[in-house]
Structures are given as structure tokens and as C-alpha cells.
């Protein structure tokens, strides 16, 4: 068993009476691809927000490589090496594609407060950004305004912005949301190659069951804020509770037909 890189202990977040995340303890192993699934409203995005520091938990803690990062503000968790993407496209629409990624790369360096040199002199960020753009396949659109990209390319750009700072853990919130089905395998392949080649950990929230089952090392199922099941893809697809709660009655019937 490899080391645990990211761990939550009894993480709970309430919005008034609604318990969006309810006593969730998850351990994510370094170098693994760990998926979190669950129906809409299961609390996956809130869970992401708690881990990345966008939201504060009502109770419970988050550990990264053994350090307690529960109270760290969001910009600090990124510097620790946790990159996080968004379900809803969240870019700088009036800046170019290159600039979006370049900024993400620049955020990691210490020169962002320098104001007397042209940003072009810090060519390592531009080089890094171009590398990333090539990785996600947006090189030829580098000069375009991010807001004018088609939806699928915006998803790729979003991924690029996570990659640019070279984080140890990538938290991807439905990276394929809204993408054309032809592009999905391509993107997932990319995610997988990043995970394998760079010794990175990927935490993935995804709706696409096929994708999840084929790429994940481990799967966590959430339902109505709480942890329903954890295990390998095989274990999860065999788990009765998961099938009834998440995949639904109809799915079970159809499975029976086969």
C-alpha cells in the first residue's frame, strides 16, 4: 500500500438544517486515481470546496501529506500542491487562452508582485504555459480570448489551468461536463497519462459511469451528503446499495436482463 496523500476525517458541512456533507472520511493514496461519484446533490462539489479551502467545514479535518490544512485559505492550498478545477466553467473570459494558463503558472513563482519588468521577461511561465497548451491541445488557439472558445475547449483550458502550476494532487470536478462524447475518451486518456507519467494523484468527480469504472483505482460513492461505499471499481459495481441508491431500480432490472 502506498502512502496516503490526502485525507479527510469526519468532514461535515451544514447549510442551516441541510447537511451537505455528512461525516465523510476518505483517504486518498498517493499516485492513485480516485473517483467520487454520486447522484446530483450528493455533496460532491461541496466536498471539493471543503478540501480546497473554498468553504470551511462545520466540523472535521482535512490532512494533506499529514499536515492539517483544514483552515488554510484557498490560495494557500494551491501553493501546497492541490490543484482544483470547477464544474462550471470558470476562466478569465477577457484574457487570451495563453494568458489564462500563463497566470496559472505564474501563481506558483514568487515574482508576481514585481511590477517593473515586462511579464515577457519571465519566459519560464510562458514556456510552461505553451507546454501545457500543447498537452491539452490548444496550442493553435493560444491567442484567442478564452470567453470566445467553444465549450469543449473551455473545459480543456480549465484542465490546462490546473496543470500549469504542476500540482501533486489534481481535483477535477466533472472535467468532461458538457463535452462531446468523442472528446471524452481523449480527455480521460490525457488525465490518465498525467497521473501515470507524472506520479500525480487525481481525484475525480464524474457522472460518466463508464469512464469512472474504466479509469479509477478506487471509487467513493456519496449519497445525500454521506459516504455510501468505498472500494475498487469491481467492488462498487457489485455493491447492492450503490446500485439501488445511485444507479436506480431500472438499472438493476436491465442488469438482470443481460
Amino acid at each position, binding site marked *: 500500500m502506498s502512502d496516503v496523500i490526502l485525507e479527510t476525517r469526519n468532514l461535515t458541512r451544514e*447549510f*442551516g*438544517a*441541510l447537511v*451537505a456533507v455528512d461525516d465523510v472520511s476518505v483517504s486518498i493514496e498517493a499516485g492513485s486515481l480516485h473517483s467520487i461519484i454520486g447522484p446530483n*446533490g450528493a455533496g460532491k*462539489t*461541496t466536498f471539493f*470546496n471543503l478540501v480546497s479551502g*473554498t*468553504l470551511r467545514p462545520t466540523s472535521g479535518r482535512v490532512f494533506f501529506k499529514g499536515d492539517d490544512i483544514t483552515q488554510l485559505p484557498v490560495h494557500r492550498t494551491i501553493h501546497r500542491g492541490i490543484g482544483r478545477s*470547477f*464544474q*462550471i466553467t*470558470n476562466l478569465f473570459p477577457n484574457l487570451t487562452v495563453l494568458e489564462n494558463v500563463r497566470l496559472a503558472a505564474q501563481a506558483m513563482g514568487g515574482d508576481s508582485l514585481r511590477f517593473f519588468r515586462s511579464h515577457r521577461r519571465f519566459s519560464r511561465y510562458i514556456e510552461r504555459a505553451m507546454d501545457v497548451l500543447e498537452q491539452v491541445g490548444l496550442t493553435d488557439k493560444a491567442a484567442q480570448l478564452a470567453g470566445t472558445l467553444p465549450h469543449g475547449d473551455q473545459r480543456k483550458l480549465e484542465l490546462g489551468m490546473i496543470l500549469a502550476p504542476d500540482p501533486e494532487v489534481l481535483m477535477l470536478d466533472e472535467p468532461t461536463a458538457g463535452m462531446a462524447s468523442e472528446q471524452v475518451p481523449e480527455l480521460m486518456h490525457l488525465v490518465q497519462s498525467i497521473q501515470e507519467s507524472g506520479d500525480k494523484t487525481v481525484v475525480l468527480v464524474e457522472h460518466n459511469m463508464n469512464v469512472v469504472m474504466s479509469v479509477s483505482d478506487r471509487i467513493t460513492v456519496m449519497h445525500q451528503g454521506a459516504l455510501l461505499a468505498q472500494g475498487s471499481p469491481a467492488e462498487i459495481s457489485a455493491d447492492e446499495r450503490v446500485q439501488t441508491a445511485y444507479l436506480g431500480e431500472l438499472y438493476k432490472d436491465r442488469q438482470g436482463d443481460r
Partner: protein
Amino acid sequence: MTTATSSPARRRSDWFKENRNRFTTLAILVFLLLAAMSGVERDDWFSTIMQGLSVGAITFLVASGLSLIFGLMDVLNLAHGELFMLGAYVGWTVYTRFDTVVDILVPLLILSAPFTLLPLWRRLAAAIGSTPLGRRWAGLGLLAAGATTTFVSVTRFPLVIWDPGNFAMSPSNFSVQIDLGTLAPLPPDTFGWPAVIAILATLLGGSLLALGFNVLRSQIDERTVVTRKHLLGFGVLIVTAIVLLAVKEPLNEWVFGLSTTWRFFLAMVVSVAVGSAAGALIEVALIRPLYDRPIYQLMMTLGVGFILIELVREVWGRPEFTMSRPAAFNGTGPGCPGEGLGGFFSGCSTLEAFGSRLRVYNEGFVILAGIVVLIGVTLLLKRTRIGMIIRAGVQDPEMVEALGINVRRVFTMVFALGSGLAAFGGVLAAPSIGLGTGMGAVFLLSAIVALAIGGLTSFPGAAAGAVLVGLLQQIIIRYGQSGINLPFLDEPFKPSPTLVPAAAILLMIVVLLVLPAGLFGRSER
């Protein structure tokens, strides 16, 4: 980002916990006020409170409109203070120079009459052709032609004899000077042309303008037909104008024969009407095109405020006016000052109560008017359908529109209502503080401070904030007379009256830093 999807059912204890900051702040504020009051001599405290409430009432009238507008459409109307000022000037004009109102009203009615025939212009506009560029130039050309015609014809009406300088004179003074020959305005019969031609030319001008605006409208709408209702509206406007023109002299005499109380009442009605109309016009013509550019909207209202000030300077000139209190609140002599709270109805200018002397107008009538507006608007919001729509719109205008309600029209109505309230505040304030082009900025600042303290979108918050600001200001003024013993000064520090608004602003900054959403405001949704 999406967080939880539903807004939760709150338990009572949660509610208290969430509002802890709010209660603490409120408690500290009350404590501070009480502590401040304890330093004031006993005889003074009642009148200080009443004066504070009076200033608070005027501030509230400005703040309430500001709050309604901001709540519903997210526009911080920085021209609101100038609408307040406009209300004061219009009210003053009706009060002291009713004759000018008739003179202005006649061409205005004629000019606006063609606008009632909207379907006609829409059909004509639709016939004009549909290339965007062509329509644009045609529309601008029509507007220019209309404006020129209007300008030439309107100056043929008797209103031209009202030189700005003349406004400063009382009607009697004015007629005396004319009799003496020291003042020689153009005689009213220098119509230039016969009245009929002037009227027709104005009608033409109005028609050209109406057509021009409709040509410039992007949507072509051919569905509408001129109905009897439209014709009726047109007829009423024209007939009113002609009748007014005919009965001008006797009407003026009759109005000047009324008591100042009645004239004050008339002034309130007219300035609220003018304020509302101006507000609606500003919203439709200038704010609406900018709904998707909020920062420009803010800049626009700022610019409109400056234009209103300059317009007032053009029309009324630069001197500052005073306005006498209406007769019902201006009595002196035997039986005055009135005794106790019953003195309110004695017709005296002052009354004695709780060991303090109060001015019936300032500390009685104004506060009363403020309370009436507070209750009236609260009822409007809570009990009527339009109030329901406003409350819903504050939260989610898109959903309201999706229910089949014309939200834009509601926006215009609320803007008009808010502007009307500000104008009402202006006319109420005029007898106690006088008129000047700077009055708007002063009260806008107070109103913004009050709103920020109370919570930008909260109507009760506007009232609470306004009262707090009013009280605080009066207490500071009172200390300005007696002095505060500060630990590090030898002599008591006597803040000058000019420093008064600064105290309220300081309070605002502190409150905003503790509670960014204000006392009653809802924090971010």
C-alpha cells in the same frame, strides 16, 4: 460556484446564532447613543431626540427610495439626492410662483399629447424601412427636426418671460416692479405668432419626437392599433392645455388667494408628480440601456445628478432661496407657544413639551410625514400585489419575469416611486433648511450612510439607519455647543457644525467593517 442547492429550513437557535453579530452591533449602538445622551443636559434631551428624528425622517425619505431602487434593480442611484433637490425647487416654485407652473404646463401637455398615440408612431416607424443603419439615421434626423421645432415653438409660449432672476422675487414684488417699470419682461402677447400656430407647431414637434424615438427602437411591432383609449388620452391632454391657457389669469388669482397651507399641499402633490415623472424618464431613457453594464450604470446616475444640478442652475439661477413655513405651522402671538403635544394643532410655530421647546413644523409635521410614508410604503410592500412583486423581484427578477410579469415596467414604477419619495422629502425639507443646489449631495450622503448602516436592500433597515444617522448628527451638534471633554485635550472639544456629517460616515465605515451587509441586510446569497 454551486454550493448547496436548497435554502434550508432554519431552526430558531440557528437564526439567533447567525444574527449574533447583528444583535451585538445593535446593542453597542444603542448603548453608545444612550451614553451620548447622558452627557446632554436634561432639558435638552427631548428636543435633541425630536430634532434627530426630524432629520432622520427627511433622510429616510431619500434613503427609502434609494433602498427600493437598489433592492430591486441593483442600481445605486447617485442622482437620488438631486431628485430630492428637484423636488424642493419644484415645490418652492408651486408654493411661491404658481403662475409659472401653468405657463410651463401648457406647452408640456401639448408636447406630450402625441406620445399617447403610440400605436400610430409604431406603425409609421415600421413603414419607414428596416435596414438598421437607415433606421438609425432616419430616427436621429426625426429627433433633430422634432427638437428644433419644439424649441422654436415652445419659446412662443408665455413661459419665456420667466427669466431665472425673476424666480427669486415674490409675486407681489414682481408685480410692483413691473408697475414701476424697473422690470420689463416681454408682455405675454408677444406670442410672435397667433396662439393656434404655436400650439400646432408644438404638436408637430412632439409628433416628430415620438416618431423619432419609435424609429430608433430596435423591435418592430405592428400588432398595435390606435384605440379609443389612446384618442381619449390625447384629447384630454390637449383640452386641458387649452383650458389652462384660457383660464390662466383667474386660476392664478384663485391659487394665490388660497392659504399657504393649501398651497403647500399643492406643492407637495406637484413635486411628487414631477419627481416621479423625472425618475421614470431617467430610468427608461438612461438607466435601462445599461442594465448589462452595472458599473456604467453607476457612472450614469452620477452624471445625471450633475446634469440635474446644472439644469436647476440654468432655470432657477444660483442664488439660494428660503421658503416660508405654511400658515398652519407658523402662528405666533397670543396663545403661542402651544402647550404639550396638543400644541401641535394650535397653529403655533412652536410648542412646549417635556421642558423643551419644539418647532411644530420641523419636529412635528416632518416626523409625522416620515412615519406616514414608512407605514404607507410598508403596507404597499406587504399588502398589495405590486408590493408582492417588488419583494419577489428583489430576490429573483428573472423568475418574476418568467411568471409573466413585465419586470421592466415594475422597475420603472419603482424608480418613479423612489424618485417621488425623494422629491417629497425635498419639498418637506425646504421650509426648514431652505433651497440650494448643494442640498442634494448632503442628503444623498446621509441617505447612503443610513442605507449602508441599515443594509442596502432592507426597507426597515433604511428607516432604522436614517433614524440613527439623524440622532447621531443632532447629538454631535448638541455637543458642538457644549463641548466634549476629551482626555488628551485641556479645553472641551467643540466640533464645528461642518464636522457633523463626518461622524455619521465614521459610523458607517465601522458598521460596514463589522457587518458588510449592514444591520438588517442579508449577507451574500
